[in-house]
């Protein structure tokens, strides 16, 4: 049992199965692929299927924000004011998201959270 525990601890720390999950304000300190979580700010520009959808992501509880460009399918719940996360890399101040990496967070699958109600 202890051996099993050790194996998976090692696996998580060494293998590429894990991704840092960051807020926009923490992004500057990391290079490489990360998962970025934040609130979608208006305006939404462009098209996710042609040329890329552009928007800003802000810290969920904060003010730091970063521009994002995303291509791929857009989840049903995506909207301004919603908490989302994308995977990608910061390139010259622009967060370039991987294709189809956009996920909307539904804090509880069963209830609209207080934030989404306000929007």
């Amino acid at each position: 049992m202890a051996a099993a525990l050790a194996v998976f601890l090692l696996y998580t720390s060494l293998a590429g199965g894990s991704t840092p999950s960051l807020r926009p304000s923490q992004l500057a300190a990391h290079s490489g692929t990360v998962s970025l979580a934040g609130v979608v700010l208006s305006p939404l520009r462009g098209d996710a299927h042609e040329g890329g959808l552009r928007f800003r992501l802000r810290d969920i509880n904060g003010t730091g924000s970063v521009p994002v460009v995303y291509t791929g399918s857009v989840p049903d719940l995506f909207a301004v004011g919603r908490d989302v996360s994308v995977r990608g890399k910061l390139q010259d101040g622009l967060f370039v998201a991987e294709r189809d990496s956009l996920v909307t967070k539904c804090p509880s699958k069963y209830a609209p959270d207080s934030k989404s109600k306000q929007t």
Partner: protein
Amino acid sequence: MADLGRAALVVAFGLIVYAALTGGYAAFRGRRRLLESATNALFASLGAVAVAALVLLAALVRDDFSFVYVADHTSRELPLRYAVSAFWGGQEGSLLLWLLVLTGMGSAAVALNRKLTRDVLPWTVPILGGIASFFAFMLVFVASPFATASAPADGVGLNPSLQNPYMMAHPPLLYLGYVGLTIPFAFAMAALASRRTDERWIVVTRRWTLASWAFLGFAILLGAKWAYEEVGWGGWYAWDPVENAALMPWLVATAFLHSVMVQEKKNMLRVWNVILVAGAFALSLFGTFLTRSGVINSIHSFTQSSIGAWFLGFIAVVIAASITLILVRLPLLRSPTRLESLVSREAAFLYNNLFLVALALTVLWGVVYPLVSEAVRGFAVTVGAPYFDFFAIAFGLPLVLLMGVGPLVAWRRASLRALGTSLLWPTGVALVTGAVFLAAGAGSSPAGLVGYTFASFVLAAIVLEFARGTRARRSLGDDGWLGSFAGLVGRNRRRYGGYVVHAAIVILLIGAIGIGGFGTTREPRRALAPGATMRIGAYDLTYLGSVQRRSANALEMRARFDVARDGKPLGVLSAGKNRYFAEQQTSNEVAIRSDWLRGEDLFVIVGKFNNDGSIFLKVLINPLVNLIWLAGLVFVGGSLIAMWPDAREQRRLARRFAYAPA
């Protein structure tokens, strides 16, 4: 009306606290009359909770928006069936459902074992009361479903993705499973507190455990079916924290169901079993907490949830109390027997337990890892599907193998030669299957090939067990083959029900490998214009154009396709999106065409409707996915066989545990 609901909850809270405190005092002092009174209070609380539930149900059905809960979870246009399902669509209603099921199941379990809970396990009622007190407290003081405000003109509505028949059944079944695990836990802890550490608590709660476990398993698969059809990304399980929340207690409960057999038969693993039952219960609480609080998405959402901290506190109390009780009673739990051989049925059960618990722990670690890393390193690190897939395979394949080998190993000490002889046929079948699949090109997914080889091994072993048993019975009596078969299963329901469940797991495995290892996906980067054709596998999809339709509560946009396979027309499919008015949300409405003969699904997702009439499309071919749903039915069938009351077994147990008043 809201006042009636509030009053009913306050009365229920009072009764439950009375049952816990008075019952505890009575159990401590051995006051039987007082314990009867506490038991009656527990029964009565069920009535009070039922009244509260009826009030909420009535408000939901009547669209009484003066109830904040109703205004937040329904709307005027919402169809009645979904207005009813909004009962468990939100936090407060879910808590009420928890309490309703808990008082209901608790009362039933106590009522059916009245003498036992009075004379032998007096701590059962106070422990059930203690657990129920927490939920009643939450409902009265923290998250009341009966908060009122001036009624808005219309409600917010129900999350559109929950407006699905599967979501009407999935949550209540899940709660039956979660809450049902309270019963074996309460009896186990009562056995410890009452110094009755024999296996009576296991025997009495066996069907409760089995039923809760079956509910939980079936609910997980219903949730998967919902995700497959409604969330519509083309898969069926995504290692989402909410999915894992139900999987973890199910895994531990599975381990428990196996290890109790060792205790019943050999009087071993007594400490291990109380640890497992406490673990399963704690994980079911943790599961409720995860689904309700959303803490896992971000440590920050923790503060937003009104019940998160309370729940976490309660889980901590439950774990601490269980550990303390187990430690205090450790001397009573020492097993008189030891493991005699590493090749024996007991040992096989032990390996099965280690793998199941290790799997549950790795899932748990994956779920809490973002929180741990955020606390330690300042930012969250999430583990994704590769992590979970790796361990599901690493621990899952040995478990599958054990499903085939375990039932063939003798108790106490098995001879390797005899074991080898009985494994001859299954091994042969497995090797032939593997070779055939390799020749057919299944080598494209090595894990899939190994999985199928193992699956055929287990299926062969199960069929062999049935055949052997039937033949043995037939040689004894003069019933025909069918009569012998029925007699075999009927007289050993637990064993052969278990085999049927094993078969269900293998069927599930075959389906999961099919969709996971041998599926096809196509997602063209260019939009598809009306009249254009897209090809995937042997299928041709010709896009005919889009239509819009207004339903009661949504605008339905549909793209229509002419589908053909190998040039043969198969008819028209329509996939698209619904835009819900009151909820101001859009939901994906995928098209699924199941081909039962070929055992594959054609799965069509419309990514986006463009203004010029073209669409973005994603199409998948999912082989064997329907076996996953079939496995759910076989699973329920096997569980029912194993659960079905057996008069002979009852008599045998009655002789074994002739109740002696304490």
